[in-house]
């Protein structure tokens, strides 16, 4: 290819291409994010991967329903104002898949390139840990709606811009242990099956510590640690059956949880042992008669099947079911809750009809008490940055006549009964025998 005239040197070409790349990428950026007078919210949740089906998609559906309703001004009191503070809401939807490093990068893009006014998102605890310092650094109101790790506010000690509008996972397991201790005080043995990753490890640590405090004579007879999304649990079910536990605790979620219940049920695992599923609520719709009545299930708070009766829930549940042909599960409830928290906060401190600033939003949100389909939510821990709510556990009941599952024998635990006070780590609090817990 001699015909092409040579450039002065390769040096020149290299430098030129480096400069070109820099310029092109820089210019393509400044084209986005015009200031259009709308309140722009970044919504980040799993749209692909294993967590999309049970969590991410219901949550993004709930976000769509809530934001559409708010923008049309048809939301119930006290949320009748259009959008947020009278301004229409614009959504920037992102996929949470791809790992924490990528999410840290995309969070910056969301704030600095797409210029969102607030971010609501994150189901994975690893993503929450990676985002937490960046949220504080960039100074944009960031609401974690679902992730359960108790380490978020250990990483960021004095949060200003960071909030969590849902409960952490410690609460679930303390409540599960209390429920078991109250409804089945005579059990002698417990077994565990958890997905071998952070969620499973933390869940079992919290539950086993709590149960030891409440029922000191219970012994652990088996611990099974299949890997995440294994799908086939034959060997683990055999090991559990042989150890003959009175109860089996599991933090399995989504497809894994349903697979475990189907496979274990077929092999009679639950004839003698009661399963305690801390994330079992997503299965109430699909269990049908395959899961025995009396299986203990939780919904990570007063969500989904455990949601109380109130006007907002009477709007949300039928509206969600009508639009998406499925009952809303707990991630959907938690998403609505986060959006309403943001709206309530902005409208508390900003002048009506004016774009709320970041500082106004975080000032309004800290310590806020607001209404959601799950009841009244109080931002009452970690200087008003962590939500406090009651937690419910109950037993699965299937009605063969209607073909629908539901929860019975529901017990609700006040937040002060199952949440450590500010300043103590969950493990220390549980080991010390829940000092300061106020239970009914």
């Amino acid at each position, binding site marked *: 290819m001699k015909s092409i005239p040579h450039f002065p040197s390769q040096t020149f070409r290299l430098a030129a291409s480096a400069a070109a790349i*820099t310029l092109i990428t820089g210019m393509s950026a400044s084209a986005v994010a015009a200031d259009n007078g709308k309140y722009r919210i970044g919504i980040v949740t799993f749209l692909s991967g294993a967590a999309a089906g049970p969590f991410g998609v219901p949550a993004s559906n709930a976000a769509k329903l809530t934001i559409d309703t708010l923008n049309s001004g048809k939301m119930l009191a006290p949320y009748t104002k259009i959008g947020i503070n009278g301004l229409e809401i614009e959504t920037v939807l992102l996929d949470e898949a791809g790992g924490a*490093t990528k999410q840290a990068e*995309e969070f910056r893009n969301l704030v*600095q*390139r797409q210029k969102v006014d607030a971010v609501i998102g994150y189901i994975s605890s*690893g993503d929450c*840990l990676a985002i937490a310092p960046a949220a504080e650094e960039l100074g944009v109101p960031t609401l974690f709606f679902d992730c359960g*790790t108790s380490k978020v506010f250990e990483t960021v000690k004095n949060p200003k811009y960071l909030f969590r509008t849902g409960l952490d996972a410690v609460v679930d397991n303390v409540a599960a242990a209390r429920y078991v201790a109250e409804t089945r005080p005579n059990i002698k043995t417990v077994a565990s099956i958890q997905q071998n990753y952070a969620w499973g490890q933390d869940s079992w640590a919290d539950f086993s510590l709590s149960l030891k405090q409440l029922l000191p004579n219970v012994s652990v007879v088996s611990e099974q640690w299949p890997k*995440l999304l294994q799908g086939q649990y034959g060997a683990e079910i055999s090991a559990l059956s042989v150890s003959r536990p009175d109860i089996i605790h599991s933090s399995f979620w989504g497809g894994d949880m349903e697979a475990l219940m189907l496979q274990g049920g077929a092999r009679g695992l639950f004839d003698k042992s009661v399963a305690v599923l801390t994330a079992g609520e997503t299965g109430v719709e699909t269990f049908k008669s395959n899961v025995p009545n009396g299986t203990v299930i939780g919904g990570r708070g007063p969500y989904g099947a455990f949601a109380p009766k109130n006007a907002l829930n009477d709007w949300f549940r039928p509206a969600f079911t009508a639009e998406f042909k499925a009952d809303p599960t707990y991630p959907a409830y938690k998403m609505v809750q986060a959006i309403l928290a943001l709206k309530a906060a902005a409208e508390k401190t900003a002048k009506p009809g004016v774009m709320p600033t970041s500082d106004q939003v975080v000032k309004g949100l800290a310590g806020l008490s607001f209404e959601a389909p799950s009841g009244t939510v109080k931002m009452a821990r970690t200087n008003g940055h962590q939500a406090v709510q009651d937690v419910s556990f109950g037993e699965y009941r299937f009605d063969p006549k209607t073909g629908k599952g539901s929860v019975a024998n529901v017990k609700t635990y006040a937040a002060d009964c199952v949440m450590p006070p500010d300043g103590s780590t969950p493990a220390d609090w549980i080991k010390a025998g829940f000092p300061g817990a106020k239970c009914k």
Partner: protein
Amino acid sequence: MSFPKHLASSTGSAVAIAALVFAAGTWVLPPWLAFLLTLAFAKGLVVLGVVIQMRAGLVSFGQALFYCIGGYIVGLASQSLGISDAFALLALATGAGILMALACGWLLTRYREIFFAMLTLALSMILYGALVKSSALGSTDGFNVAAPSFLGWTPQGDAQKQALYLLSVAVAAAVAIGIHRFMVSSLGRVIEAVRENELRVEYLGLSPRAVLFSNYVVAAGISALGGGLTALASGHIDPDMAVWTTSGEFVFIAILGGTGHVFAPFIGAIVFSVIRTFAIQEAPHFWQMTLGVVLLALILFLPKGLWSLIARDKPAEVAT
């Protein structure tokens, strides 16, 4: 294949000019782009590790092993040993990667082709499995890495990110010059000879295993450096750094950029990151497909990678 001396120095000055252009960008580029480039340069270092092994005819499907080691060493040294200096942390990360490579290299350099690829993959998945099972290290959640200091200077806020960006530009440039020297040295040329005909190299009185071993160790060192830089920039590490899809991404970027020049991996990494972020922005539900189609098209039309756009009318410089 003869290699005129003046070209070696010309690549050196090209690297220097490119580095200066990018460094000047510190005050011009929007912050999100500087952050994207920081991570892309770090990734480019790992990809360079893949590329120099490709020159020897070996495809490493486990380069994430060293990427992850680099990240975790930086995280652990900063958390447990209280070291906060970025240079010390990166030196530790590189050292750890090299030590690991010295241990694994004896085994791996016995194998070629698919056997080498599968073994490298297996080693990185062993590390992944071990990290996932260790709740002390945060299991799949990983843990956060504190913001580093630079020779006693601890910048805050924007200055912190700018310093990390400049550091990544400087490290990438230094490594690019070093690896280019290595590629055109006599050892570097023997590596290509090993790919072409290993038996002949032995007849020449050289040990192909020793050559491949040193190549493997160099690749591991720069990959661990890239991992360390990623940990410092993103402020978080988790076991996903070692998972096989991460290695696959490195191999993919290597093919995308091309193996013709030390610049190619960095161009590949930048283009990949830019395409990915805009795919995610424009098509939240289909971004994987968008990314796949664009990259497939790039590879179909530029089978020798993006580098062939720049080196089109020239004979291949150091490798084909």
